C-alpha cells in the first residue's frame, strides 16, 4: 500500500560528475502561465517560477542557509534605519535583446510594471515608496518605513528585470515575449503547448548555461506527466502532489529530487464570521483534526511530515515548542469545546442552545482537495459539527475569500518568504492588509510584526516568530495538513537539478517549490552517457567478482 515499502533508490548520485555542454532538455510542467511579464502574470505557481529561473534572474536569492545573497545584483545594502536600500548592479549584464541592464532599466521596471495600479505585484511592494537612480548601475529604494527583510521582495517577480525596450516594443503583447537576463532566451511560445528556449550566449555568468535549449511543456494532468517521463517523451517532470511523489519513489530508471517546502495545505477560518469567530470553535476544529489522516488521504505518508506551524522542521524558523503546543488529534478535547460553545447562551452564531454548529467548508473542484475536504468533513462531523461542503471554482473561491464572504475554506499557504512578509500578509490589519483573509488580528501579533520588520538580529526575530506561533496555537486562525513536498524527476542523463551555486561558489537554496536553476543543469550526451553506463557496469562486475 502507498506510503509503505516498494520504494527504490532513485536518488541522484551525490557526485553529478563533470558538466557536459550541449543538449536539448524537455521539461514537463504542472501548468501554463497566463503572462510572462512580471507584474502582469501570476507568477506564484511552481510552473511559472521554474520557467522564470530560465528566462529571468532574480536580483537576490537565498542561499542554503536561508540568507539573502545578491545574485543578479552585485550588492544590496540598507541604511542604518533599514528604510533606504541601495542596490548595485553588476556591470556588463545584458538583456536577451542586447539592452543593457542598468539603473535606468531597473527603475523603468519598477515604475511601469510594478508600482502601478492594476499590477499584480502592487500589493506586495506597498512598503516601497519610490526608487531613485544614484548612478549608472546603482539605485536607491526608499521605503515608507523600515523593513529589515526588504531583499526578500527582490527574490520574486519584482526582482526579475525585463528589457524595457522589449516591453515597449511589444506593447500589449509584451507578456508573450519575455526578454530577461536569464540563461535562456525565448524562441517561441505556443501557449498551452510548448515554450521553446535556447541558450543565451551572452549570459553574464561565464561558462553558463550548459544546455543548448530547453522545451517547457505544460502537462497539467499528473498521470500524463509521469507517463510522459516513462515513455521518454520528457526528460524532466515536476510535481507537488504527494501521491505522485510516492509513485515516483517507486520508479527505477529515473532520478528523483525532493525538497520539502514550508508551504502547506490548510483550512482557514474567517474570524469575522460566526461561528468561527469564536476561538473555542476554531480550537475545537483544530483538536478534531488528525493531520496524519489528512496527509494519508493526500497520499503523502512518509513524504509530507505533518505541519504544525508556518515552517517545516528543516527551516531555521522552526520551533519545537510550537510543534508540541499545536492542537491536534484530541477528539475528546474537541467535543468538550463544541459542547461549551453549543451550550453558551451567548453563542455567536445566534442559534439556540443545544443546536449543532453548522459549518460550511468551501473547496475547489480539484480532486485531491475534494478528498481533503471530505476528510475534514468526516473528522469535524465526528466531534459534533454539522459540516457542509461547498464546491466552487477558483474564480468564485478567490472572490469569496477576498470579500470575506466565506466561513472556512481549503487554502494553500505559500510560506517560502521571510516570516515578516508572511505574517504581515496573513495577520496585518485587514483594512490596510487585504491579504489577511482570515481577518484575524491580535495586538501581540502587531507588536511582534514591528520587531520582525525592524530588528536585524536573527535570534530576536526568531523569538518574535515563536511568540506569534504560540499565539496561533491558541487562537487557531487556520489548521495545517502536511508540508508540501516538491519533487523533480529526471531521466538519468540529466544532472545537477538541485545544487546550484552563486557566482562566488556559495551553495544555493536548492529547488524550493520545484524551482530549478536551469543555468547549471546539464545533460549527458549519447557518448558520455554510454561511457558512464559502461563504467558503471564494469564497476558492478568488478564488485561482483
Amino acid at each position, binding site marked *: *500500500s*502507498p506510503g509503505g515499502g516498494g520504494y527504490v533508490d532513485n536518488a541522484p548520485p551525490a557526485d553529478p560528475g563533470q558538466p557536459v555542454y550541449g543538449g536539448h532538455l524537455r521539461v514537463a510542467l504542472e501548468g501554463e502561465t497566463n503572462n510572462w511579464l512580471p507584474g502582469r502574470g501570476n507568477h506564484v505557481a511552481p510552473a511559472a517560477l521554474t520557467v522564470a529561473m530560465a528566462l529571468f534572474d532574480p536580483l537576490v536569492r537565498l542561499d542554503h542557509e536561508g540568507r539573502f545573497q545578491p545574485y543578479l545584483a552585485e550588492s544590496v545594502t540598507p541604511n542604518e534605519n533599514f528604510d533606504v536600500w541601495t542596490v548595485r548592479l553588476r556591470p556588463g549584464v545584458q538583456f536577451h535583446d542586447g539592452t543593457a541592464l542598468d539603473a535606468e532599466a531597473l527603475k523603468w521596471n519598477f515604475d511601469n510594471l510594478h508600482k502601478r495600479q492594476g499590477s499584480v505585484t502592487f500589493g506586495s511592494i506597498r512598503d516601497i515608496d519610490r526608487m531613485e537612480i544614484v548612478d549608472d548601475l546603482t539605485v536607491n529604494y526608499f521605503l515608507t518605513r523600515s523593513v529589515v527583510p526588504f531583499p526578500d521582495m527582490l527574490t520574486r517577480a519584482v526582482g526579475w528585470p525585463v528589457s524595457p525596450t522589449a516591453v515597449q516594443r511589444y506593447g500589449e503583447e509584451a507578456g508573450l515575449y519575455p526578454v530577461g537576463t536569464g540563461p535562456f532566451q525565448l524562441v517561441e511560445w505556443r501557449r498551452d503547448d510548448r515554450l521553446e528556449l535556447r541558450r543565451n550566449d551572452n549570459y553574464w555568468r561565464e561558462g553558463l548555461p550548459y544546455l543548448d535549449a530547453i522545451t517547457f511543456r505544460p502537462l497539467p494532468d*499528473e*498521470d500524463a506527466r*509521469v507517463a510522459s517521463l516513462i515513455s521518454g517523451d520528457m526528460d524532466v517532470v515536476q510535481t507537488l502532489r504527494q*501521491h505522485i511523489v*510516492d*509513485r515516483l519513489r517507486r520508479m527505477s530508471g529515473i532520478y528523483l529530487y525532493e525538497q520539502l517546502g514550508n508551504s502547506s495545505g490548510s483550512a482557514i477560518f474567517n474570524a469575522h464570521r460566526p461561528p468561527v469567530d469564536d476561538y473555542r470553535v476554531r480550537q475545537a476544529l483544530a483538536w478534531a483534526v488528525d493531520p496524519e*489522516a489528512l496527509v*494519508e*488521504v493526500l*497520499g503523502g505518508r512518509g513524504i509530507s511530515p505533518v505541519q504544525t506551524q508556518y515552517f517545516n522542521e528543516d527551516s531555521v524558523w522552526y520551533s519545537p515548542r510550537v510543534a508540541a503546543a499545536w492542537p491536534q488529534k484530541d477528539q475528546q478535547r474537541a467535543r468538550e469545546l463544541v459542547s461549551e460553545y453549543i451550550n453558551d447562551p451567548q453563542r455567536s452564531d445566534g442559534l439556540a442552545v443545544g443546536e449543532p454548529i453548522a459549518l460550511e467548508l468551501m*473547496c*475547489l*473542484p*480539484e*480532486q*485531491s482537495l*475534494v*478528498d481533503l*475536504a*471530505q*476528510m475534514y*468533513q*468526516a473528522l469535524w462531523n465526528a466531534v459534533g459539527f454539522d459540516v457542509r*461542503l*461547498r*464546491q*466552487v*471554482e477558483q*474564480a*468564485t473561491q478567490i472572490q469569496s475569500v477576498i470579500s470575506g464572504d466565506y466561513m472556512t475554506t481549503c487554502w494553500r499557504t505559500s510560506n517560502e518568504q521571510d516570516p515578516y512578509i508572511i505574517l504581515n500578509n496573513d495577520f496585518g490589519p485587514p483594512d490596510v492588509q487585504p491579504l489577511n483573509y482570515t481577518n484575524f488580528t491580535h495586538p501581540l501579533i502587531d507588536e511582534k510584526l514591528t520587531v520582525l520588520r525592524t530588528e536585524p538580529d536573527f535570534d530576536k526575530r526568531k523569538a518574535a516568530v515563536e511568540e506569534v506561533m504560540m499565539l496561533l496555537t491558541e487562537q487557531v486562525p487556520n489548521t495545517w495538513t502536511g508540508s508540501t513536498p516538491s519533487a523533480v524527476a529526471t531521466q538519468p542523463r540529466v544532472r545537477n537539478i538541485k545544487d546550484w551555486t552563486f557566482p562566488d561558489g556559495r551553495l544555493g537554496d536548492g529547488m524550493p517549490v520545484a524551482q530549478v536553476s536551469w543555468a547549471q543543469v546539464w545533460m549527458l550526451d549519447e557518448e558520455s552517457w554510454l561511457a558512464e553506463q559502461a563504467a558503471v557496469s564494469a564497476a558492478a562486475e568488478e564488485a561482483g567478482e
Partner: protein
Amino acid sequence: MPVDRSRSPRVPAEPLSPRRSSGGSAARTSRALSFSVAVRQVFGSGFGAGFWLAAAWLLIVLCCAIFADFLPVRDPLDPVIANRLNPPLTTNWLGADGLGRDMLARLVHGARVSVVISLTAVSIGMVIGGTLGILAGFFRGHFERALMAVLDVILAFPWLVLLLALVAFIGQSLTAISVAIGLLWIPAYARVARANTLSVVQREYVLAARAMGASTLRILWREVLPNVILPVLAYGLVAMGLVIIVESALAFLGLSVEAPQPTWGGMISEGKRHLATAVHVALVPSITMFLTVLSLNYVGDRLRSRFEVRESNL
C-alpha cells in the same frame, strides 16, 4: 451527450406531387401502419434475452437508489483510513477508495444520485421541451418558427460550454446540477416532441375530434398527448443514459454534485488519481456506469424503435 438524433435530414417531401393512393396499395400501407403489429411487438415477445437482462440491471440500479439507506452496506461517507485503497474482495467487497470508504456503499448511494439527476434532468427536459415541442407542432406558424430559431441558436453552442456556464451560475448542489442538465435537454426534447406531434396531428383522428367539436385543449390532451408521450418517454431512457454520461463529464472537470455526495462520475474522476496504484477505484464505478448506460441505451432504443416516427415526418 445530448446527441440530437431527432433532427432529420431536411429533405422535403416530394414537392407537390400528389400521390394517388388507392385500392390495394393504400390498404397495404395502412396495414403496414397498423398498430396491431406495433403493439404485439411492444407487449409480446421479440425483445430477446439482452433486453430483459438490461432491464433487470436497471431494476437493480433503481432498487439500489430507492433502498440505499436500508441495504446492508456500510456508511458511504465514513472514511476508514486503514482501509484506504483496499482492493476488491478484501474487507470491502468492491474495494475502498482513496479515503478508505467502502466502494460498494458508495456505488449504491451513487446510484441514487445518478437516478435522481437523470430522472430530474430528463423530466425537466421532457416537461418543458416536450410541452414546447407539442405546442409548436400543434400550432405551427410563428410560434413554431420562433421556437425552432431559438433552439437552433441554443444548439449552436457546445453543450459543455452551456453546462459550464449554467453550473457556474446556479451552483453545484444536486438540484442545481439536475436543473442545469435538464435545461440542456430542452432543445432535444422539443424537437422529438415536435416531430412526433407533427406526425400525430396529420392523423385524421385529430381532424375527426375537431369535427366533433372538441376544444383545442381537449384535442391536445386526449388525442395528441397520449400518442406523443410514448415515443417521448422511450427517448427519455436513452436520454437518461446520456445524462449519466454528461454528469460524469462534469464530474471529470470537478463540476458535478458537491462532495461528499457520491456520484458515479465523481467516483470515476476520483479514481483517476489512483489509476497507477489502485485501478479498481476508477474501474469499478466505470463498469457500473457503463453497464447502466448501456442498459438504458439498449432498452430505450428497443422501445423507441417501436414508436419511432418515420423520418419524413420529422
